């Protein structure tokens, strides 16, 4: 099994902006099994991209722990992180071009991405084979400027997958693509996930993409706000016992509302205390 699991414990990340501290993540506990294909959902500014960056080791969390496979990413040295990024963890940034050397061909880009892993003695497939896996063998030596947006995204994925990573983190890989290209990209990701057992975590806003994924985790206000599995939406109880309410329920239960949990036939009812109820 090639895939790598992910486990975060009480993950907190605080930004310093304009003299103020802003909590981007406030205690995220997340478990992803090795070989899983999942999506991170959430509104803009909810913290999903921050979570993605922390998982990739781009920066260190303010508090909490991150484990990717057996590696504690949150405590890894720069050298260990470099090694991990060279061989096991690949991040695909939003916007395909940001993942590529603009002057190099697709094959040269894949080769460039593979160099550090090859130097570490890892046997990797030739760039042509990687591109073929993604269904774009014919573009290997074509200038990037002559590729369609879909092809460009597939090349960006090829670059990320060229090192045969155990974890692929993709930030909005289908944004700015037409439906056909979007579906193709999703198919290829799913195929890689199936074929190589690679764990794939992707960030998306697109409901269509979310529906395609077997598991989604919604980040809201820096916390895990819910989880979807096979089309069903769930609230997730955190490690310290908190239960974030789903968005539509929050509209009905403003902050400060008192609620009771009533066990009813093997499940729980959530009963808000209405004003005047006690008086009755």
């Amino acid at each position, binding site marked *: 099994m090639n895939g790598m699991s992910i486990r975060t414990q009480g993950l907190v990340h605080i930004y310093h902006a304009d003299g103020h501290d802003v909590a981007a993540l406030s205690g995220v506990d997340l478990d992803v099994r090795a070989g899983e294909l999942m999506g991170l959902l959430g509104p803009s500014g909810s913290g999903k991209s921050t979570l993605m*960056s922390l998982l990739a080791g*781009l*920066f260190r969390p303010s508090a909490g722990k991150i484990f990717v496979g057996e590696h504690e990413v949150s405590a890894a040295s720069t050298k260990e992180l470099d090694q991990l990024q060279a061989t096991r963890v690949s991040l695909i940034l939003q916007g395909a071009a940001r*993942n590529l050397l*603009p002057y*190099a061909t697709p094959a040269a880009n894949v080769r*460039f991405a593979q160099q550090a892993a090859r130097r570490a003695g890892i046997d990797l497939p030739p760039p042509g084979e990687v591109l073929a896996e993604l269904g774009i063998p014919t573009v290997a030596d074509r200038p990037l400027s002559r590729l369609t947006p879909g092809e460009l995204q597939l090349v960006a994925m090829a670059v990320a997958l060229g090192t045969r990573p155990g974890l692929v983190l993709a930030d909005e890989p289908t944004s700015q693509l037409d439906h056909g290209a979007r579906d193709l990209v999703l198919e290829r990701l799913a195929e890689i996930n199936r074929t190589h057992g690679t764990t794939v975590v992707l960030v998306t806003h697109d409901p269509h993409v979310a529906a395609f994924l077997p598991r989604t985790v919604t980040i809201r206000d820096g916390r895990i706000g819910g989880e979807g599995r096979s089309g069903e939406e769930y609230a997730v109880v955190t490690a310290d016992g908190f239960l974030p309410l789903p968005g539509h329920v929050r509209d009905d239960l403003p902050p400060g509302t008192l609620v009771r949990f009533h066990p009813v036939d093997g499940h729980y009812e959530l009963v808000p205390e209405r004003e005047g109820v006690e008086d009755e």
Partner: protein
Amino acid sequence: MLSALRYRAGQVVVIALMSALITTCAAFAPLYDRAMQQAAVDVTLENAPSVERDLQIFGPDVNWFQVRSDPADMVPYVPDSSPVFQTPVLGHNATTNAAFVGVYKPVTGELWWRAGQCEHIEITAGSCPDASREIIVTEKEAEVYDLKVGMTVTSLAAEPAMDADFETPETPTVGYEIVGTYLPADEDWWQGTQLSGLAGIASSEDAQHDAWLTDESTFSGDTPFLIRERSWLGTRLRTSAVGVDEMAALEADLRRLQDRVDDEPRQSLETKQTVSQVVTSLPGLTEQVDAQIEQSRTTVPLLLCQLGLLGVLVLWLMLRAATDQRRSEVVVARLRGRGTAGARTLLMRELLPAVLLGVLPGVAVALVASSLIRVYVLPGEAPFEVRRGLAVAIVIAVAALVLVTYAAVVRVAREPLGSLLHRVAGRRPGWRLAAGDAIAIAASGAGVVAFVTGSLAGPAALAAPALLSVFVGLTLAHLLPPAAARLGGTLLLRGRLRAGVSLLDASRSVVTRRTVALVTVASALAVFSVCGLVVGDRNRALAAEQAVGAPVVVEVQSATDTVDRLTTVEKVLADLDPGARRVTAVVRTAAPSGGVSTLAVDPDSFRRIALFAEDGPSRKDWSAISAGPAREPVPAITSGGPSEVGADELRVLGLDGIEQKAERVATADRVPGDGPNVTVVDIATARKLAEPDSDSNVSLWFGSDDPVFVKLVSGTLAHEGVYATDTRTLSDVRQGLDASVAAWSLWLGVVVGAAAVLLAVVALTVLAVTGWRARARDLAALRLAGVGRRTVERLPAGAQLLPVLLGVLAGAGCGALGAVLTLPDLPLFALPPVVDATDLSIPWPAVALAGLGCLAVLGVTAVLLGRAVAATARLDRLRETA
């Protein structure tokens, strides 16, 4: 790598051009320096009289050892560096003391034999002497003394040695038969020795004849020993074969030879009987060249070093922009686990070749430019040379280029990945002093303080303009934004939208700070260079005027005494120039031991013709010394220190060389054409007290360099028996001063000034290109906020103009102040002039002109760049993310 270079080919070309410019500066310095040194050698040798630059070796007087020596024995004494000398000419010298019919004084002169002599004269009558005691005389002498071919002239031989009875036998005589007459020719071959021009010139004791040439056999056989008879060897320098290195080797050889000849106690008898005197001024000439080389070592590297540093600064800005543009590529490398080292390698592999691409063209440009200057600008025939200095300069330039590239690359490669993911580098808001700026301000400020307090002097003082401008530029760069913000806010409150927003725009842009600093440094260099050039030019003009005294000065001589000569001169001048406006006669009397000389002049015409400084004697002063009664004290204008007798009484030389009492009516800082200590008197008054004697010289001072008029006067005087012996023109002397390393070094200032402005233009362009996107978004936001299109279009130009204007003003001030601090240390002359006429005042019109030039070029650049940025300020820019 090639694909990366091709991808941003335009940028690669610009970076390569900048690197080429820096390399050109570095490589040009040693090439130009060496070419100047070679030119200085050529000019020094060319200007030196043959007698100074060539080598003459004399044997001992035959009367000392009572034996004649063969001049061929002296050949081995010619130094080892003989390839620079031509084949030696052998000869004999002696002095005559002859009696001529009708001349009531002994007639003395030189009797010479030179091997091959008749091939280097023009025989006008008779033949070349080919037997003992046959002579050939000059045509002029034959005319002056009425000598004919076939005549015999008798001369005394040397006084014989005492005999055994301590009696001195009677001095024998020698009869010389005149076999021909000649005209001098081939002056070089004769090594500057004067063959003619002496016949007829008389002193109180004797008259002189021109050189008599005789056959070698005269100096052998039955001819008695002659007066001061000596063997002679002369060899001419192959000036074309002498460069700086040969000159140094030659100097060492000649000093060894001189020491050998001077060290009489240790000499063998053979040496004593072979060589007694070495005549050459080559070691002295070498010292002159060395002094000039020393000067070039001061000016050239420092001028080009300052320019090179500005170039490096601009390259740094370019590379910052280039590396910022490659942030996404660094991200790609870092995301794929290449680490900072991998990212660094990626950027270095792309940028270093671009930078190094400029090295070879830069060296080639330096070689071509120095060759063109060598061939077309510098005098002489300096050879093409590639020496170690060039290699060292190139290595230094390459090292600087690599270091700057590395620094720019490391800056981005080391940036945290999180911050690299922002497409544009983050900027720190507000007023902050970066550590690098603080160090630069502190260091340059310390340097400025050192200059002002005088603790930093010498060659390093030439860095004053650069240090001063760095200090002022950086300080302004940090003061301008908050000041502009405050003023902009005030103007906005008063409803002056465009000016207010322009100032606010300028205050928040990092480009403003960099622009003001760069423009200050570049303008300072340009203004300082122009100052140096103008001050050097002015001082060479002043020195030439002081050295010559008038546009043309002609010394005259005659066979008659000085009074007759002067009378003839005055008569001829009165005929040719009745108003005494074009030429005036001057009698100069100097004490034999030097000291204070006396110039007897016609005050009215001398005032008009002599090149006095503006603060020279007034018309009233000249009137005060004008012709008065024959009495002492003589009214005089003095310069320097005539000896004081009493409180108001001076003693000056009369025209007869005897001291007279004089009265100072005015003083002059300097009297043109003479030394530091001079007294000027009215010639009419002076002559009433004493007529000039034979030690007084008569010269003609012309008011303009009009060769036709000078020739007319000289020709008319020659007809009357008064001959021009020496002519000095202002333009010749000025040319001589211009042909010096000091002058050539300052000319380099023009190149430096122009290049500094060019670099500033490049820097402004780079800064504009770097920040155009953010500026365009800001401007688009203003348009969205309702600011009119025309106002928005004009804003960036206004925001760019402010730092340029301020920078040029500050730079011009720094350049002028730097010149004040530096000019006293700047070498202006190859040799210090006898009379110091130096004027180091700042040429304000030139400063203003240079400043306006900088403002015009940089201002137009700023406006064009501002308009280009404004043209990109479309509303859709607002959709671009930062």
